[in-house]
C-alpha cells in the first residue's frame, strides 16, 4: 500500500501494520490498518477534508483527534453525525461526508460564506420575527441548508441493552491520574472500575512528550498499564464513555451497544483537560489542528500531520510538539510563541537548542489557503502589540500544518452536572473547579495540576480519601498538593480579531468574534443569554472549545471578570448517544389471566388495558360491531361469560376489619351482615372519587374487597398508609393475582351455574342479590358473589388463580346447552353503560365528587370519620357546578358522540361527554355527560359538538337506561 504518510514504529502504537483494512469515503476506496479510526486512516491517505461546516459550509478537517469536536462528523449508512476520529474502520465500511451540496470538494453551499456579513448573530430572530408566518415559509429551506447527517429511514432495528454494575470506586479517565487512582484504591481491596473513552489506557501518556528525549511517557505508561491489567480488583473499560453524573454516583457508561448503569460508592473523576484553539482569521482551515491532535496522529496512528509545520504556542508544550514533529520528519518552520518572555523548561530549551526559529511575542494573525483552496498553505504572523491587538504588518510563513498549543479547559462537564462550580483564576488564565458533589472527587489536570508528579500524587491522594471513607483503609492522607508554581499552560488572550472576521470561536455553529460581541451589544449580556441568542455552545461539541473563549470575550465586552461571566450550565449527556442506548432493554410488563389462551383460541381480539391483556370481543375485526352487539344481546337474553380476573382483590382481616373499611370507604360497613356484599366507594382526602368495588363479608373478621383493575395497586398502598397511622388491629393483603374470576351473567346464569355447583343453594331466596357464598364450582373451591355487574342475574366466581382455565372450560362446556358465549370488555362496557354504571377515571376526573355523579347515596352520613368525609361536607355547602346525566341520541343518522366531545349551550361550553356508545338493547346511542345543573332535567335537550363539528341533539333521560326498576339482576 502506498502509505507515504505513515511513520515507522514506535510511532503508531494503536495500529497493526500487518492488518490492512479497506473502506470507502465519498465512494473512493481507501486503505488503513486495524486500530485506525476513520480520520486517522484518511489522514494517512492525505485526505484532510472531512466535512462542511454547519452554517457557511466551510471546509473542515480534523481538529482534536479525540472525538471532541464536530468537524469530524461524518455519515455512516445508518448512523448520521458519527465522529470520524472515534469510529474504528472496518472492512467495507461506507463513509460519506456531511452537509454539502454537489460535492465535498466543491460545495455550492459554500457561497453562503460570502453573505456572512448579511447573516449577523440573531439573524433568524431578527429576519423572521415579522410578518407572522414568514418563518414557516423559510424554515424548510433553511433547515435543508443547515442540516447535519441524514437519518436512514430503512434502519434495521439493532439490539441494544443495559446492565447494572456496582463498584466501590469508579475512576473516570485512565490517564496518569486515573491509572494511579485506580491502583491506589485497588490496593485496599476495593472493587474499582476504570473507564476511558479512548481505545487505549494511558490518556496523555500515549502521545505526550514528557522529557526531552521523549521516552518517559512510554515507559511510564507501560508500567502503569501492566500493573492495572494484572490487578484483579480493577475492571478496565476502554472505548467507554461516562456520559453523565447523577445523584449518589449513578453513572451511565456507554460501551458499544450496552449502557452500563453503574453505581459507585465513590467516584474519582480524572477526566483531564481539553486543549483549546487560538482564535484568529481562518483558524478553521483544514491543517490547523490542536497540538495534541498532531501528537495523537503521530504517536497513536503513525500518521505524519504534514510536511511543513508551524507551532503557535502559549506554553512549553508547543515546544514538545515541535520536537515530536521533528522526530517525525516534519519540517518545523517556526515556533510562534505568544509569550513575551517565556520561561522555558528542559524540553523547551532542548527544542530551542535544535536551532528552531522561535518568534516570541508573536501571534498567528491569519491562516491562508493553499492553491487548492481547501487546506492550509501559509500563516501570517504578526507581533502582539497589546491584548488581542497585532502590529499593522507581519510576514508570511509557508506551512501545511499549524499546531495550536495555547491552553486548556478542565473537562468540567461531569463535575458541573453534579453541582461543581467553575471559577476562573486570572493569574493562570484557567478555569478551576470547586464544590464537587458528595462522594465524588477530581484529580489530575482537571484539578489544575500540570506537573506529572503532582498529577499522580493528587490522584493517589484522592484514592486514599475514598478508601479511607469506605473503611477499606486508614492511610494518612497527605496534605493537598499545592498548585504548581510552574507557568500556567494557558495563555490569557489567544484571540486576535481581524477586519475580515472569520476568527471562529465556535466551529460547530460558525460563530466569530463579532457574533459574540454583538450578542452582548444586542442586550444579551449574560453568558446564558449569549448562548441562546447566538447558539454558541449549542452545537454537537457543547462548548468544549468555545466556552473559555466566549467567557473571555463576554467578560471583556461587559466589563466583568471571566469568573463573574462563567460558563453555561452543563447537562448530560456528555457526548451524543444513540437513542438505542436509552431504548434498549426496556421493560413493559404484560399481565395475562389464567384463561388467556382460551380467549385466543376462541378468536378474541386482545387489547392491553394497563399491563393486562383482555379480550375486546370475540371474532374477526371486520365485523367488530356485529360481534359486540351479539355478545350484548346474548347476555341480555340468555347467558354470557366474561373473564374478570383482572379485578383487584384485597383481603381485609382481623378484629378491626369492619372498623377499617368504615374509615376507608364512604359507606357504612359495621352493620354489614356476614354473607353479604356491599358497594364500596373510595374518595381521597379532597372528597374526589378514586376507586370503587364491592366489600364481601365472609366472616365477622374477614372481608374480601374488590377494586378496579387499574386502581388496586394504589388502593392497596393507600390502605396500608392509612393504617400505618391508625394502627388498627387488621391485616391487609393484596391477593389480586391469587384469584382468577369470571362473571356469568344473563337470565340463564343460575341454570348454568347450578349444573356445576351443588354445595351452594342458588335459589334466589337462599342466595339473594348482593349475597356472597363459599363453595365449590366445578370441583374448584370458589367465592361466589351475586352482583349486578351488567344489570342481569349474575354471579362473580372467584377461584384460585391456577384453576382459571379449568373453570372457564367447565362453564363453557356446561353452558353449551344454553348457548353460553364469552363476551369481551367492549360488550361489558356497553352493558354497564346501559345500566348507567360509571367507570372511575373515565366518567370521573380529578375533580369529581360523589354528588356530581349521583352517588350521594353511597355516602354514610353518621360515621365519625371516613377519608374524604370532611371535604364532602364542605362541598355539600356549595351548590353543584356540574352534574352527570344520562342522555340518548334519537337521531340514528347523527355521528355517535365520543368521549370528551363538548356539551354546548348556544355558544357556551357547558360540559363534555364522558362515555357514549350505541346500545343494541335500546337501539340508539346512549351516554353519560357532565352538564350544568340547569341542563340536567330529564326530558330536556342539549347540544353536543360531535365528530367533524356536527351538532348532535341529545336528550336527558333518567338513569339507568335499561331496566329502570332494576328487577332483572334480582331475578
Amino acid at each position, binding site marked *: 500500500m502506498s502509505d507515504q504518510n505513515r511513520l515507522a514504529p514506535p510511532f503508531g502504537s494503536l495500529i497493526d501494520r500487518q492488518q490492512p483494512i479497506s473502506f470507502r469515503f465519498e465512494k473512493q476506496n481507501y486503505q488503513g490498518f486495524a486500530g485506525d479510526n476513520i480520520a486517522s486512516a484518511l489522514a494517512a491517505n492525505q485526505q484532510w477534508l472531512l466535512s462542511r461546516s454547519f452554517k457557511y459550509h466551510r471546509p473542515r478537517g480534523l481538529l482534536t483527534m479525540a472525538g471532541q469536536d464536530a468537524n469530524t462528523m461524518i455519515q455512516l449508512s445508518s448512523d448520521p453525525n458519527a465522529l470520524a476520529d472515534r469510529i474504528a474502520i472496518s472492512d467495507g465500511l461506507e463513509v460519506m461526508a456531511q452537509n454539502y451540496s454537489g460535492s465535498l470538494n466543491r460545495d455550492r453551499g459554500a457561497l453562503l460564506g460570502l453573505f456572512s456579513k448579511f447573516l449577523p448573530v440573531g439573524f433568524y430572530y431578527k429576519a423572521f420575527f415579522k410578518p407572522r408566518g414568514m418563518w414557516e415559509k423559510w424554515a424548510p429551506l433553511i433547515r435543508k441548508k443547515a442540516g447535519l447527517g441524514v437519518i436512514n429511514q430503512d434502519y434495521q432495528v439493532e439490539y441494544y441493552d443495559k446492565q447494572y454494575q456496582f463498584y466501590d470506586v469508579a475512576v473516570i479517565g485512565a490517564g496518569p491520574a486515573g491509572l494511579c487512582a485506580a491502583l491506589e484504591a485497588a490496593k485496599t481491596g476495593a472493587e474499582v472500575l476504570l473507564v476511558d473513552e479512548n481505545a487505549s489506557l494511558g490518556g496523555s501518556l500515549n502521545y505526550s512528550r514528557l522529557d526531552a528525549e521523549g521516552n518517559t511517557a512510554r515507559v511510564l505508561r507501560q508500567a502503569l498499564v501492566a500493573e492495572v491489567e494484572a490487578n484483579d480488583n480493577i475492571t478496565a473499560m476502554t472505548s467507554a464513555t461516562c456520559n453523565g453524573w447523577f445523584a449518589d454516583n449513578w453513572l451511565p457508561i456507554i460501551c458499544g451497544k450496552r449502557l452500563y448503569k453503574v453505581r459507585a460508592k465513590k467516584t474519582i473523576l480524572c477526566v483531564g483537560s481539553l486543549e483549546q484553539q487560538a482564535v484568529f482569521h481562518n483558524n478553521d482551515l483544514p491543517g490547523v489542528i490542536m497540538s495534541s491532535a498532531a501528537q495523537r496522529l503521530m504517536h497513536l496512528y503513525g500518521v505524519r500531520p504534514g510536511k511543513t509545520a508551524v507551532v503557535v504556542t502559549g506554553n512549553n508544550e508547543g515546544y514538545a510538539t515541535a520536537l515530536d514533529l521533528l522526530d517525525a520528519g516534519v519540517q518545523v518552520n517556526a515556533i510562534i510563541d505568544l509569550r513575551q518572555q517565556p520561561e522555558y523548561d528542559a524540553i523547551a530549551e532542548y527544542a530551542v537548542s535544535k536551532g528552531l526559529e522561535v518568534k516570541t511575542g508573536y501571534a498567528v494573525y491569519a491562516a491562508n489557503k493553499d492553491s487548492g483552496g481547501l487546506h492550509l498553505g501559509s500563516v501570517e504572523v504578526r507581533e502582539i502589540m497589546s491584548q488581542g491587538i497585532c502590529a499593522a504588518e507581519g510576514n508570511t510563513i509557508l506551512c501545511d500544518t499549524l499546531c495550536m498549543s495555547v491552553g486548556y479547559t478542565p473537562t468540567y462537564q461531569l463535575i458541573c452536572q453534579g453541582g461543581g462550580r467553575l471559577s476562573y483564576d486570572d493569574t493562570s488564565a484557567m478555569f478551576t473547579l470547586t464544590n464537587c458533589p458528595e462522594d465524588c472527587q477530581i484529580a489530575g489536570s482537571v484539578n489544575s495540576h500540570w506537573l506529572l508528579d503532582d498529577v499522580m500524587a493528587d490522584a493517589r491522594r484522592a484514592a486514599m480519601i475514598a478508601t479511607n471513607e469506605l473503611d477499606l483503609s486508614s492511610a494518612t492522607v497527605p496534605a493537598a498538593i499545592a498548585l504548581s508554581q510552574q507557568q500556567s499552560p494557558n495563555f490569557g488572550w489567544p484571540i486576535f480579531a481581524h477586519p475580515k472576521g472569520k476568527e471562529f470561536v465556535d466551529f460547530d455553529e460558525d460563530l466569530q468574534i463579532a457574533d459574540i460581541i454583538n450578542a452582548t451589544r444586542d442586550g444579551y449580556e449574560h453568558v446564558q443569554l449569549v448562548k441562546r441568542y447566538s447558539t454558541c455552545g449549542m452545537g454537537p461539541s457543547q462548548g468544549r472549545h468555545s466556552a473559555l473563549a466566549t467567557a473571555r470575550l463576554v467578560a471583556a465586552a461587559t466589563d466583568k471578570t471571566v469568573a463573574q461571566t462563567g460558563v453555561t450550565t452543563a447537562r448530560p449527556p456528555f457526548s451524543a448517544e444513540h437513542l438505542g442506548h436509552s431504548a434498549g432493554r426496556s421493560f413493559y410488563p404484560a399481565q395475562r389471566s389464567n384463561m388467556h389462551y382460551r380467549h385466543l383460541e376462541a378468536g378474541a381480539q386482545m387489547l392491553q388495558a394497563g399491563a393486562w391483556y383482555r379480550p375486546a370481543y370475540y371474532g374477526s375485526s371486520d365485523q367488530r360491531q356485529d360481534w359486540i352487539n351479539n355478545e350484548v344481546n346474548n347476555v341480555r337474553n340468555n347467558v354470557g361469560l366474561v373473564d374478570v380476573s383482572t379485578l383487584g382483590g384485597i383481603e381485609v382481616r382481623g378484629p378491626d376489619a369492619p372498623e377499617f373499611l368504615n374509615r376507608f370507604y364512604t359507606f357504612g360497613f359495621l352493620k354489614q351482615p356476614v354473607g353479604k356484599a356491599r358497594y364500596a366507594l373510595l374518595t381521597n382526602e379532597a372528597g374526589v372519587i378514586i376507586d370503587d368495588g364491592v366489600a364481601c363479608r365472609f366472616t365477622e373478621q374477614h372481608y374480601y374487597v374488590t377494586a378496579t383493575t387499574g386502581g388496586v395497586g394504589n388502593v392497596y398502598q393507600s390502605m396500608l398508609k392509612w393504617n400505618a397511622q391508625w394502627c388498627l388491629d387488621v391485616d391487609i393483603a393484596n391477593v389480586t393475582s391469587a384469584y382468577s374470576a369470571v362473571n356469568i351473567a344473563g337470565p340463564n346464569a343460575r341454570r348454568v351455574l347450578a349444573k356445576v355447583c351443588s354445595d351452594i343453594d342458588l335459589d334466589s331466596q337462599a342466595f339473594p342479590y348482593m349475597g356472597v357464598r363459599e363453595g365449590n364450582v366445578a370441583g374448584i373451591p370458589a367465592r361466589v358473589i351475586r352482583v349486578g355487574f351488567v344489570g342481569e342475574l349474575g354471579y362473580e366466581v372467584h377461584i384460585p388463580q391456577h384453576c382459571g382455565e379449568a373453570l372457564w372450560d367447565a362453564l363453557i362446556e356446561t353452558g353449551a346447552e344454553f348457548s353460553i358465549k364469552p363476551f369481551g370488555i367492549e360488550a361489558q362496557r356497553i352493558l354497564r353503560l346501559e345500566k348507567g354504571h360509571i367507570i372511575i377515571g373515565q366518567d370521573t376526573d380529578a375533580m369529581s365528587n360523589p354528588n356530581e355523579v349521583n352517588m350521594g347515596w353511597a355516602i354514610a352520613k353518621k360515621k*365519625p*370519620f371516613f377519608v374524604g368525609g370532611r371535604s364532602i361536607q364542605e362541598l355539600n355547602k356549595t351548590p353543584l357546578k356540574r352534574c352527570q346525566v344520562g342522555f340518548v341520541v334519537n337521531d340514528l343518522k347523527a355521528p355517535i358522540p365520543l368521549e370528551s366531545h363538548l356539551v354546548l349551550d348556544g355558544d357556551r361550553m357547558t360540559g363534555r361527554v364522558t362515555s357514549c356508545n350505541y346500545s343494541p338493547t335500546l337501539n340508539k346511542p346512549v351516554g353519560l355527560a357532565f352538564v350544568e345543573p340547569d341542563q340536567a332535567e330529564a326530558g330536556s335537550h342539549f347540544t353536543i359538538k360531535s365528530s367533524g363539528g356536527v351538532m348532535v341533539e341529545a336528550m336527558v333521560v333518567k338513569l339507568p337506561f335499561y331496566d329502570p326498576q332494576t328487577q332483572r339482576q334480582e331475578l
Partner: protein
Amino acid sequence: MKLLTCPLNGLRNITEFTYGGEYHPMPDHQQASSREWAEHVFFHDNSAGVVIEWWCHSASSYWFLAERNTISDKILRTFPASEIFNQRIDFVAVPEATPTTKGESQ
C-alpha cells in the same frame, strides 16, 4: 438516580419507591375550620429545609418516613412510621348528625 434507605429493605434505587407526600398531622376533622381543613388537604408547606415525607417501598408495600433537606436534596434519615404512630387512633362519633335524605341503600 438517588438512593434511599428503606428501614426494612436497606439501600435501594429510588425508583423502587413511591412518594407519599409530605407528612403533616391531620387536624381534628370535626373541629377544624373550613379554611384549616382546606389548607390541610390542598396546601403543601413546600418548605426550604428539612421536611418529613412518606415513602413506600413498592416491592414490599412498606411505608416509612424520611427526613429530607429540600435545599440540598440530602436524605438525612429514614425511620419506620411506628416511631410517630405508635398507638391506635380513634375517632369519636359526630356530635350532631347532618340530617340525611336517603338511607344507606343501593
